[in-house]
Each structure stands twice: as C-alpha cells, then as structure tokens.
C-alpha cells in the first residue's frame, strides 16, 4: 500500500458516496448562532454621537481565520471613512458594537482557541482604544449581542448559550439577567413560545430588552424587564400576520427610540417589517411590509432619525427613513457591497469589499446610480492567526 493508492481509493469512495449524502440537521440553539440571512450578517452600521460606524469582514480568503472584521468610522460632520479597528485582539470571529453614549464598546467574538469575549472601548471616535472587561463567555453571533444602557453605561450581552448577562462599567463582574429558558418560562415567554434569543437592547429609559423568535405565530418576541419582571413589549401585528411565524432580526435603540426589524413568515412568503417605539415597547409604529421573495437579509443597518437600510441575499438594497415612511428600493448595489450606512434624508453609503480594499459608494435620494467617493486599503494581516 502507499499514499497514492490510498488517496485514489479515498477519492473513489467519496465519488461513490457522493450520491448518498444528505444535509445535516439545521443548527438550533438557545441563541441564534446562524444569522438569519447568511454568514456575514454581523456586517452593519450604526450612528452614535461621535459619528457613523460600520463593521464589515475583509480578506476574501477561503480560510475563515484569514478574514478579519474591520471597523470603519465616519466622524460626525465628515464624509470620509477611516479605519478604526481596535488593535491587538484577533477579530476574525466577528466584531459587535454597542453605543455607550460618549463611547463605543466593541466585543470580539471568540475565534480559534479563544473562547471568551475581550472588550475594548473608545471615547475619541476610534483613535485610541482601551481594554475593558472581558466578558468571560462567548458572545452570540448576532449584531445586537451587545448593548449599553444610555446614561449608566451598563452593558447587556447576549451569549451563544442564550444567556443574557449584565455588567456595570469596568465590565469585569457579570450577572445573569435571564436565560432563554427562564424567559420562555415566564407568562410572556409562554405566550410567545420563545424558541431562541436573537437580540439584546436597552430602551431609551434604560430598560433591558430582549428579542427572539416566537414559536406561536403572529407574536413578536420582544420582552422588557421592568423591576425584575419580564413582560411582552413587542408590537401588535396586523391580523394578516396572525398565522405567520415572527422573528426579531434586529433590535436596537438609537436617538431616543427603539427600532426593530421583524421577519414575518418563511421562505418565499416572508416579509420584513420595521417597527419604532418611542417608549421602550409600549407603543409601536409598524412599517409597510417589504416582501423578501425568499431572499433573506445579509445585512441590516440603522441610521439617523430611525432610518434603516437592508441588503437582501439577492443583493438588492432597500431603505426606510423612519416611522411612517415606506421602504424605498435603492439602485442596484455596487459589487461587493457588504453593508449600507443610511444617512439623513434617505441618503446612504454603500460599503463594498474586495479582499483588502473598501470602496465607499454614495447614493442621494432620487438618484439612479451610486458614485464611488472613497477607497480605503486595509493591511489585512493574513496568516497572523494560524
């Protein structure tokens, strides 16, 4: 025997067995590990007082550990993006952002042999970072896994095992706020038939919010913790959605309001709704539906004034400027668009990635094309992580 025949036999075996293969069962768990719309769902942008932030994965390598998540910042009042990735920690597992008022906190999702979540903080728009935390657990693989309470800076983290943990600034001492199981056992959780948790946020008043997927149709799984009691805080949905499964894709608070993105239905019949609440979930305004036509989301971002922009798996972009508005299709997205950064008045930047190059394209309302306005070359540290 020798390697040659062995390899040949192995190849032949694979060829013969290929027809017998079947896909494995879909991953399921307390916290959503598989992003709803595809692998790079962590790609997003958000607006804080310091400016606009965007996270995209770059590298273009087939080896996952050679693709690194990059943070870009566009300071308030500027139209130029700059690389602001916090240095010194491997971020090939994903970056998750939390707006902590005057500062931005990033969580580094675990990768390779690292199983916990380092945290770092900037208070100067990403020029200087300081270590904080860590969160001694694995942050969930969703863009809203980390949220900071306005004012207090208390951090809420959603873990891969479906636990929600809280920590005061310093972020070294974490306590469990809820688990998927404990939340599902509450009256609100039972009405929802809570299956998993997909998002964590704070209401503008500082109330912790958790979002998830309800097993019972027609129910939006958003929960608020008031005084240690969890109650349903999701929007009431139209009767037309009474038979539809509802999943909370995104949940965040920005500029004094809570914004959620909900997917209703499954497959080709699924639709996307945006919902806005000014009071932490007591009252909601629901957008018109955006038919997804079987194409899940690959990225969803929030901008000023409650605006939101999404990219579907069909590489189409849609934008909505805020409560009471309708979804507007964007022109065909530039190739490689990883996320959108909605701006004021329906403007948007498209951040397109090609290996180690980020191209920024701008769109103005009413326009039919995108204009390339900036190129940023990023020194991807290929091979630095094994």
């Amino acid at each position, binding site marked *: 025997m*020798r390697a*040659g*025949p062995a390899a040949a036999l192995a190849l*032949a075996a694979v060829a013969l067995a290929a027809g017998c293969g079947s896909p494995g069962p879909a991953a399921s768990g307390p916290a959503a590990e598989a992003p709803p719309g595809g692998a790079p769902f962590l790609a997003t942008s958000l607006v804080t007082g310091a400016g606009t932030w965007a996270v995209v994965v770059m590298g273009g390598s087939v080896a996952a550990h050679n693709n690194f998540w990059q943070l870009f910042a566009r300071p308030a009042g500027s139209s130029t993006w700059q690389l602001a990735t916090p240095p*010194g920690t*491997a971020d090939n597992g994903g970056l998750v952002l939390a707006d902590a008022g005057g500062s931005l906190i990033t969580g580094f999702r675990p990768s390779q042999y690292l199983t*916990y979540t380092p945290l770092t903080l900037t208070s100067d728009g990403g020029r200087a970072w300081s*270590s904080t935390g860590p969160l*001694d657990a694995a942050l969930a693989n969703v863009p809203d896994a980390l949220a900071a309470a306005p004012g207090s800076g208390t951090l809420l983290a959603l873990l891969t095992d479906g636990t929600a943990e809280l920590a005061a600034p310093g972020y070294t001492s974490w306590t469990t706020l809820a688990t998927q199981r404990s939340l599902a056992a509450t009256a609100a959780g039972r009405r929802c038939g809570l299956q998993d948790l997909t998002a964590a946020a704070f209401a503008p008043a500082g109330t912790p919010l958790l979002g998830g997927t309800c097993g019972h149709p027609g129910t939006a799984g958003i929960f608020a913790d008031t005084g240690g009691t969890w109650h349903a805080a999701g929007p009431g949905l139209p009767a037309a959605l009474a038979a539809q499964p509802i999943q909370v894709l995104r949940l965040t608070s920005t500029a004094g309001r809570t914004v959620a993105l909900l997917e209703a239905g499954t497959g080709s019949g699924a639709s996307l709704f945006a919902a806005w609440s000014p009071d932490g979930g007591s009252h909601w305004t629901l957008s018109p539906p955006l038919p997804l036509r079987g194409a899940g989301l690959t990225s969803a971002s929030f901008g000023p004034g409650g605006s939101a922009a999404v990219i579907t798996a069909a590489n189409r972009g849609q934008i909505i400027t805020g409560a009471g508005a309708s979804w507007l299709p964007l022109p065909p997205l530039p190739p490689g668009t990883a996320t959108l950064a909605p701006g004021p008045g329906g403007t948007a930047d498209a951040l397109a990635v090609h290996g180690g190059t980020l191209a920024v394209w701008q769109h103005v309302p009413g326009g039919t094309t995108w204009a390339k306005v900036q190129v940023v070359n990023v020194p991807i*540290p290929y091979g630095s992580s094994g």
Partner: protein
Amino acid sequence: MPGMNSGINVSNPIVVAAFKAALVHQGLIALLIFALLGLAWVTVRISFPAAAATRAQATAPALAEPAWRQVLRIGFGVLWVFDGILQAQPKMAVGLPSQVIEPIAASSPRWVQQVVNWAGTNWSYHPMQAGAASVWIQVGIGIWLLAAARGPLSRLAGLASVGWGLVVWVFGESFGGIFAPGLTWLFGAPGAVLIYAVAGALIALPERAWRSPWLGRLTTAGIGLFLVGMAVLQAWPGRGFWPGTALGQPGTLAGMTGTMAQTPQPGFLSAWVNAFTTFDEAHGFAVNLVVVAALAVAGAAFLSGRPRLIGPVLAGFAVLCVADWVLIEDLGFLGGLGTDPNSMVPMVLLATAGYLAVARAPAAAAEPAAAQSATPVGWRERLRVADAPRAVASAGIRSVASAGAIGVIILGAAPMAVAQASPVADTILAQSINGSSNQVNFPAPAFSLTDQDGRAVSLVSLRGNVVLLTFLDDTCSVDCPLIAQEFRQAGQLLGADAARVDLVAINYNPLDIQVSYLQAFDRQEGLAGVPNWLYLTGTLAQLEQVWSRYSIPPPEIVPAGSMIAHGDYAFVIDQAGHMRQELGFDTGPGTQATKSSFAAELTDAARQLLGHS
C-alpha cells in the same frame, strides 16, 4: 481523526536523522545478534562434537517440504524482508500515520476510523520506536520464514506472519478497505497483508495437514471462491466500474489510475499508467468485461480443483496480475511512502502455491518410512537445561538463523512496547519543531508582579522550587492556549513532584493587562484550579521591564484585526533561581502529539533539576 497525525513535516531533518540513526544502531545490534549466535553455535559444536555429529547424520530430511509450502514460505519471506526495507524509508517514521494510514481510513466507517486512530495516535506519539519496530519485525519475520524450512520453528514463523499481518491489515490498511465503498480486486482488495496472513496460516499448519491432499483442494477452492466473489463485485451495476467516463469525468477505475499516475515515480511508469487511464476512459466497458471474465474463469478453474484446468488458467491469471500490478496498482511501493508491493505479487504466489498443491498432491498413504521411524522428541526434552548445549550443538544453521530472526523481531518490538507504556509523546517531536534547548547556567532575571488572584509574586518568592516559565498573551487565539495546555499537562505528568515545581506564565500582552483577563484565560484553559499555576501581570512598564530582562522581543501591536504578534518561549529555572534551560517554544502544528511532546520536554527538564533522570 484526532491524534493520529502529529502534524510534523515528514521530511523534518531532525526526525529523519534520528530515524536513520536509530536504524543504524539497531541494525548493528541485529548483526551482533547473528554474530553472537553464530559464534555460540560454533563454540558449542566444537565443545560437543558428538552432538554435532548426531545432527549431521540427521540432516537427511525425513519428509521433503512440499513444493507449494516452499513457494509460500520463501515467497512471503522475501516479501516480508522487502516490506521491512520499505519501512526504513526516511519519511516513514512521521509520514506513515498522516500519509498512509489516515488517507486509507478516511473512506471507511467511523468505527473503523476509531480503531485505526488508536494505532495511528500511538505511532504518532512514538514515531522513532514505531518506525523502527515495523522495520525489524518485518525483516525478522521474513528472515525467519526463509531460514526455518521445517518443524515447529517454521510453523511459528507462519504464526508470526499471521499475527503481524493481521496487525498491519487492521491498523495499517483499515481492514484492507473492505468496509469502505469502492472495494475492488484491481486495487488490492481485500488487502495485500491479508494474503500474507493466509499464507502464514497455511505455513503454520502441522506436517500431517500438508501430507493430506485435502489441504491443497481446500486452498484452491478458497482461491476460486474469492476470485468468483471479486468478479461479482467487479460486475455489480452501479459501482462505477463499467463506464470509462461519467458526466464528462473519468469513471471509477480511470479516476483511480489517473490519480495514481500523479504520484512520484519513473516517467515511463507514469506514462504507462496514463496510457491505461486514457484507454480505460475510451473503453471502460470492455476493460471491465475482460476483468470480470478473467476473474470468473480463473475462479471457476480453481474451484474445479483440476490441475490440467488450473495450469493454463494460472498462466493467464499471472499475466493479468502483472498487468494490474503495473498499470493499475502502479507497482504499489513507489512514491516515497510505499509500504509493500500491494496485492498482485502475493496473489500470484498464493495462486501458484494452490496450483502446486493440487498438481503435486501427496498421496495420503505415502508417508516415508524414515518419518514413521523417527522418534519424536518432545519440546520438554529439547528445553531441558542440562541438555541445552547438546541441543544447540545438534541444531542446524537454519535454527540458528531462525533464533537470530526472533532476536531481530524482539529488537524492534521491545522498544515499541516500552514506549507504549508511556502516556506522553517523545520529546523528539518538540525538538523537531524548535531544536534542542539551550543549556545555560546564570542567575535568572528577577521579576516582581501580580498573580491571577491579585497577590504579589516575585522570582525570589519562588526559591526552592523549580520554575517552568513562559510568556503568554491572554487574548491570543492561536499559540498561547496551546502552550498553556502543554504546561497544564506537564503539571499533571509531574505527579507528586508538581508540589516542588511552579508553572509560571507572565503576561505577554501590552493591552489586556488586567487580572480579569488572566482569570478569563485561566478558566478557558482549565488552569483556574491548578495549585502550582501562576499567571502574572503588572503595569505595562513592569511587564516591558521583564520582557527586556528576559531578552524576548516586545509584543507587536498589529493593526486591522490581528492578534498581538509575539514569539513563543519557555525557560527552566532551578531551585536556586538560576536559569538552566532556554527553550524555543513555537507550538508547531499544535496536535495532541506535539502538545504532549512539549509537556514531556518540560517534565524531563523539571525532573532533571529535582534529581530524577
């Protein structure tokens, strides 16, 4: 398959050199064994001339060895020696698990992989001993078969062939691939070494079995049944052997031979295999038809048991086997890590023996008078101590050579058996990655830092214990967790000695210097409850001072999402605070075997300082 592959480059010069040196040393010992046995034999014969003369009178064979047994014994003896020589290829020590065993097992069911993985892991932990053992066991069995023509020693050689053949068949060939899809006689099913084992089993049969014509008939019937079965398997629809191409891709056979042609080999051979591949792609159906028909006809002939039928069929069958060996099996042993010439040569040997068995079948009653009149000598009589010198003097040169062959087998097997008793991998793996450690002796640079629980710790405070020291980045995602595991395993291996050894890491991260990060790292690595584990940190200025004192480069903060860039180091500090060893500690492939090897290296270093060897 976890553990099987050590991840070390098969051409690693340190391992290759060590393997060659081990073979040379053991080869010299093997020669010495034969020389000493020969000398002892000659000496005893001179001392006991009467016994030697008795032997001389008895050398006329009581019963000639049947020709077909001779074919099996000599043929497979030569094959074992040849296989043993192939095992001595420089890349074999490290390469056999990753490049031979693992690929073969890859297409087998999980339970087969688990069985094979056990052996592959053991091999990868002790590549020197395992590699050398394979050489000497196979050479020893071969010499034994060649030397011992008759009697219990010859039968024992057959049994040894069965035993080792089955070991190789199970662990080296994953049961010959019989549980994997794509099984075909053309590529060696049901495993070349199984044929060795069958031959060994025949050789191990008692003399009376060989005097019976039934043995030959049973053997030919067995061969016939096997060939018919292989014909059916080859003809079975849906297994992909009939079409030369499928959906524009080479069919099963052409795909296999096309892959074979890519392996390193002489150009003419590769050209022949390529030519056959092209031919099979164009005429796949015809090729398979010929193979199926040939196997069926040969099987039927052997099943008939008629020498007149088997003779001419055997000639054609031998031609088919040679063609298969060259054009499909590609000789089987070229390409750098071939372990045997595959199945066709042993197949022809077995078939020839089968033919001779029925063509020259002994008459059941034709037992020579000499054999009947010979007074059997029991093994108790032979082993009587007082009679031992006379027994040796009366022994033939074949018996002496057989004893030497047994010595060669033990020479290979004993170190492997001893190595198996050790739960850790050899330090040669760690040394193959970083070279040997620097032996030094100077006062270790002082440090005064804070441990993972916030307590002050200095080097002085550790006096009296051996200190195994390293530098770890607490958010490192690649090497540092592996090094931490190596230290943890070293602590476990030290057993009771661990109380006199401190496992110390100093933070090698200039950003995450808080104790909370050390604690998270400790929990991640299962080090939180290890009593002699200390993970130290301090202010950035303090850490920079320690890095500088220990002459290790300061960690580099790389932008754009990379972890901190840093080197991997370990130091061994004695009870008096003197630096005694500096080790490069690049973790290499980070496999179970290499981690274990690094742990063994640390353990050895600590034990040396504690006064244990």
